[in-house]
């Protein structure tokens, strides 16, 4: 008993020393990330103009790539990591990670009367645009399983909800923390179905009507000055307008700055449309908006039918990497290849499908590989995971390729990333390893 007490006392006495030791170790870790690391003898998919480099060296310092190439001079102080036989590609950028799901149940019922009797039949509820989700405002990373995405090689994400709102960009880390967000003012996003309530969420801000609804800030209604009505009448009139379109009016006011940039084409608008009809309506909305750039997340089964309408517009696609089945038939389609044939830019979202990541444990790019096997070009497929989504999010200056000056977001695969059995060995984000397999 006494001995035990002594031991405890001893431990308490040692505590400051232990803390000091740990802090020194952490400092060493910090030091390590500042240190130059040379990944040598690697096959590198740079995704830049250099393409694929064999037996190349990547020089990383302070979280950034210093140099890439076959004949890079390795500094004396650099720590050398040999990646003989392994392949390095840029970290995957996930353009549409649904961070928040609004509880929308499809288990609604409807009462119908038939022959004087009433029956309850299942039905789908009318579209509810929901609240405007500013992701950065309620970002709470500790209850969210980021690890399953890290395991798939996802290094950078665009966080959205399944409704509408303003997204935020985040880098993956070893432990989730609030510092993951590096851009809280991301892109506007909305879900689109072919219902008036849903279409208005996009249509009204894109075509601001000065005479109806809430007037955009800093803009006066032309009719108001002419008639000289008192301010009270003006307010009540606009109040009525808001009653008619409550959601869209509010959103227009709150995010007018972002919508103005969307109208100017300075930033993209993310739209999630789950069927070809919604895509047709989107194309119709955009027909008089030549500047607006749209990133269209398409997951529905018959979306491939609308590709011909998308061709030639400012719409780029986010696709689920899978061999899809045409509805009402047994025919298989490779939608990514169809988009590539029509010169429509596209990115892949590994997380869009339910449980897809679990199905492809350790080989996250297996579905992409199957698309490549069935005709999609390999370069486009890899770009759709890295450089294309970087351009969509507007972060291509720092992300998306392995080039000098960009962040060292690297995936190290056992072999070729698009070969069955080639495991993802390590995920490096901003120079530090966040996952090793």
């Amino acid at each position: 008993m006494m001995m035990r007490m002594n031991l405890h006392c001893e431990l308490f006495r040692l505590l400051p020393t232990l803390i000091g030791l740990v802090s020194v170790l952490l400092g060493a870790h910090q030091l390590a990330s500042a240190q130059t690391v040379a990944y040598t003898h690697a096959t590198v998919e740079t995704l830049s103009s250099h393409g694929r480099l064999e037996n190349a060296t990547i020089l990383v310092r302070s979280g950034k790539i210093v140099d890439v190439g076959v004949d890079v001079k390795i500094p004396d102080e650099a720590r050398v990591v040999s990646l003989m036989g392994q392949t390095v590609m840029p970290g995957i950028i996930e353009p549409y990670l649904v961070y928040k799901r609004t509880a929308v149940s499809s288990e609604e019922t409807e009462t119908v009367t038939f022959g004087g009797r009433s029956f309850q039949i299942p039905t789908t509820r009318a579209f509810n645009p929901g609240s405007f989700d500013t992701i950065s405002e309620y970002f709470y990373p500790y209850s969210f399983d980021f690890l399953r995405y890290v395991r798939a090689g996802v290094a950078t994400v665009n966080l959205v909800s399944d409704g509408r709102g303003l997204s935020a960009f985040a880098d993956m880390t070893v432990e989730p923390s609030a510092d993951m967000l590096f851009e809280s003012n991301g892109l506007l996003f909305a879900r689109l179905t072919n219902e008036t309530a849903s279409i208005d969420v996009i249509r009204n801000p894109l075509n601001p009507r000065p005479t109806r609804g809430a007037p955009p800030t800093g803009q006066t209604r032309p009719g108001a000055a002419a008639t000289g009505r008192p301010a009270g009448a003006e307010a009540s009139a606009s109040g009525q307008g808001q009653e008619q379109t409550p959601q869209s009016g509010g959103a227009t006011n709150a995010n007018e700055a972002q919508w103005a940039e969307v109208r100017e084409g300075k930033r993209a608008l993310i739209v999630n449309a789950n069927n070809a009809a919604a895509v047709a309506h989107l194309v119709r909305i955009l027909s008089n908006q030549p500047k607006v750039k749209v990133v269209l997340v398409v997951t529905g089964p018959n979306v491939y039918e609308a590709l011909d309408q998308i061709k030639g517009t400012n719409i780029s696609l986010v696709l689920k990497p899978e061999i899809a089945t045409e509805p009402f038939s047994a025919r298989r389609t490779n939608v990514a290849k169809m988009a590539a044939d029509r010169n429509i830019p596209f990115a892949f979202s590994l997380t869009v499908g339910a449980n897809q990541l679990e199905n492809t444990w350790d080989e996250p790019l297996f579905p992409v590989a199957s698309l490549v096997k069935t005709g999609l070009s390999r370069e486009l497929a890899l770009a759709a995971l890295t450089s294309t989504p970087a351009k969509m999010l507007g972060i291509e200056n720092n992300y998306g390729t392995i080039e000098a000056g960009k962040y060292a977001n690297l995936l190290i695969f056992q072999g070729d990333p698009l070969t069955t059995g080639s495991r993802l060995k390590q995920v490096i984000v901003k120079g530090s390893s966040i996952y090793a397999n």
Partner: protein
Amino acid sequence: MRIKSSFNPVIVTCFLIFVSQAYLHAQDGGRGRGAPQPIQSPATEQSDEANDREKDATNPTPKKSNLLAIVGGDVYTVTGEVIRRGIVLIENGKIKAVGRGIEIPHDAEVIDASGQVVTPGFVAITMSNIGVRGNVTGNNRLEDALDPYDRNIKYALGVGITTGCIELAGGRGQGRRFRDGEEQAATEDVDMMNMPKLSDDGEPNDVTADPNSIREVTLDELRGYTLRDGEPEHRYLGIDPEFGEYVTESQLDYGIENTQMCPCCGLPILPTEPITPAPPSQEQPRRFAAIKMSYGNLGDMLIKENVFYSPAPGGLTGALNRHNWRRDVRQAREAMEKAAADAAGRAQGQAPAGGNQADSRDAMRQRMAAAASGNRAGGANALTPLLKKEVSLRITANTVNEIRDMIALAEELDYNLVIDGGIEAWLVASELSKTNVPVIFTPRQRRDPRVGEDESSGSSIESTGIFESNGVGFAVASLSPSISLDGIAGRDLTSLPLEAAFAVRGGASNNTALEAITIVPARMMGLQDRIGSIEVGKDADLLILNGHPLDYRSYVETAIVAGKVCYERPKDRVFPVYDRR
């Protein structure tokens, strides 16, 4: 790897140039051969003109014309005669020329229809929500709910339907029976499994009312024949195949002869009710819209909203309803005339004194009156197109009395009428003809005559023949307005041409039956200037069939909607693809 070449580079280059030139030349020639030859109609001459056209073609033409020519088929124009081996020329979605001896421009795309039949696209006058996703109610507008990729559009095109008159809100072919509050009140926890069931002695199991107040009725009485010994006697509420009608609770309660079924809505009229019963349904007008089956082409889909003014079935039956209707029409007409007079006054520059205020007060009064009269179409304004005869009043009427009542009302209040149903219309054909009232008719619909009125009620197999000989226009509707390939094959929209063929069986001519699914429904909707026949200036909604349009063996090979090919039988695989011998 390097190839050591001993060739002179100049020679190699020359050779390469030669090869590429030859290749290009061959390609050009190939394109010339592969292109559809400009087909010469008998009346025009080849030679000089062809050369001219080639010269024209070499000139750079910046404006790309959108020309399509259907060549060589027998063209059933419907409103005119059949043109054997005719040509239909389409430009920018409209019919530019029809006939023989039409010169086909060099840049036109040509579809060879030789040996086949060209008809206008069919018009389904009754169609459930095809091409529409979700319910078009409340704030949800039709133009936003359109779905140009609805698979059912392909099925509709597969049988030749290029335009449909869809009913909005619910899409079950019936308007909602209850206002929101009433619907809640009427809700019972009844499902298919716990419906009242008859026991073997012919009584409902769950009669909760006082048994003395209910006349006892046996199954024999109910069904009109005696059961054989040992025959199972399980009867349920709902559709009874032997009975041929819906068996309702009141029929079980009161017996068949005491329970008259409302012919328009199928609800029972109980003997305790007054002679002019209150309408069984709320008077919310049904909303119809004309939708084009332009697959994948959102812009051309919506032709017209509110193609009819349509009170709910029974909405104009009974003294009170008729009183309200007359008042509504009178008020709407007064408002219309006042608006016209005001407009004329404004045109003359005399603003009516205090006109705005009086107007708004009148309008408010009318709105209140309309609201009090049962929420009819949001006030008198909805009636304006009807009174201007821009749309017709479409109402379900099946018995002789109902049809006569509707005709009399239409004559009195001066609007166009379309009778929907018309099972007994054959008995009043001359009156329909005199007043120029068309009928939406389903030739295969049957109804037994009422007891004691064997000669003057019920359906007739000769209805369509009687219509034609009396000059009554009729449109053919299918038995079911939906497309449901699994359940009621032969009765749904995919057999619309067959339903028209049954009109021929009833005595109508081929052309009348074809009119009944093309120009007559188009006229009913006021769209006769756009669809329903092959005439110059109309929309290019055309079918190419491999036989007569009313033949059960015929398939639609190609369907063209708004000038674009929207359906090809081999490609779309809606119907089996094989060559019949």
